[in-house]
């Protein structure tokens, strides 16, 4: 691998891992929101605020 190859690999890996984190956080958020909405539709709610 030339030096450019190492640099490209490092940047590519960083981009993959960081965007992977972002994607995970966004998708997990959508999953949880969907679950909450689904439970809400079924009429199961918390009484009042606070966990």
């Amino acid at each position, binding site marked *: 691998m030339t030096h450019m190859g190492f640099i490209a690999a490092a940047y590519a*890996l960083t981009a993959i891992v960081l965007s992977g984190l972002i994607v995970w956080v966004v998708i997990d958020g959508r999953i949880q929101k969907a679950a909450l909405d689904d439970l809400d539709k079924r009429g199961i709610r918390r009484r009042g605020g606070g966990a």
Partner: protein
Amino acid sequence: MIELANPTYFMALSQRVLPWLWAATAVVIAVGLFMAFRAPADYQQGLTVLIMYIHVPAAWLAMMCYSIIAISALGTLVWRHPLADVSAKAAAPIGAAFTFLALVTGSLWGKPMWGTWWVWDARLTSVLILFLMYLGLIALWRAFDDPARAARPVAILALVGFVNIPIIKFSVDWWNTLHQPASVFRLDGPTIDASMLTPLLVMGVGYTLLFLALHVAAMRNEVMRRRVRALRVKAAGILAPAE
């Protein structure tokens, strides 16, 4: 802090703040990368110094994230802050990812520089141990059936690990001086020129903003996840245990 103890308040506030965090992250990282690619090539390392701009901030964040986990651990054990363990749980995988990046980019930097994929120098070795500690935290969390019960044991582990970090650093430094390689390599020059320091600091800020955005988002997800769990338990007709 006291207002943030209320998860509902936290959710409302974070929802408003998060878009700004993402925007700021994108802008700062873009600026940082632009400055990095425009900075002069290093006298010794040539273009490979470009890796420094994504390696060093990753290592900074790896450390900073663990410090945040340690502070959250104090929040759980000492002040019983309700969101402290949410903070710690959300931060752990993010910190592990940054640590992984620090290791891999360090390795990719090392190969052209020193000729080997891995070098047991003091800094990389300490980061490797830090990575193992992150994995330990995540492993302990997942070993508990009920995530809420894991909060305090994991907090203890996090604090024990945090106290150990200077001990580990001291030990690895000592070990490294014994096994001194033929020449001493420093990942950065004796002094970093301002033309390289500024982009580095900008990338550092950018990485920090990225971490904050990810952390807040992950905390929101965790709060939602726990609500879902509590509601499902309720729906199954079993009384939810008092938390």
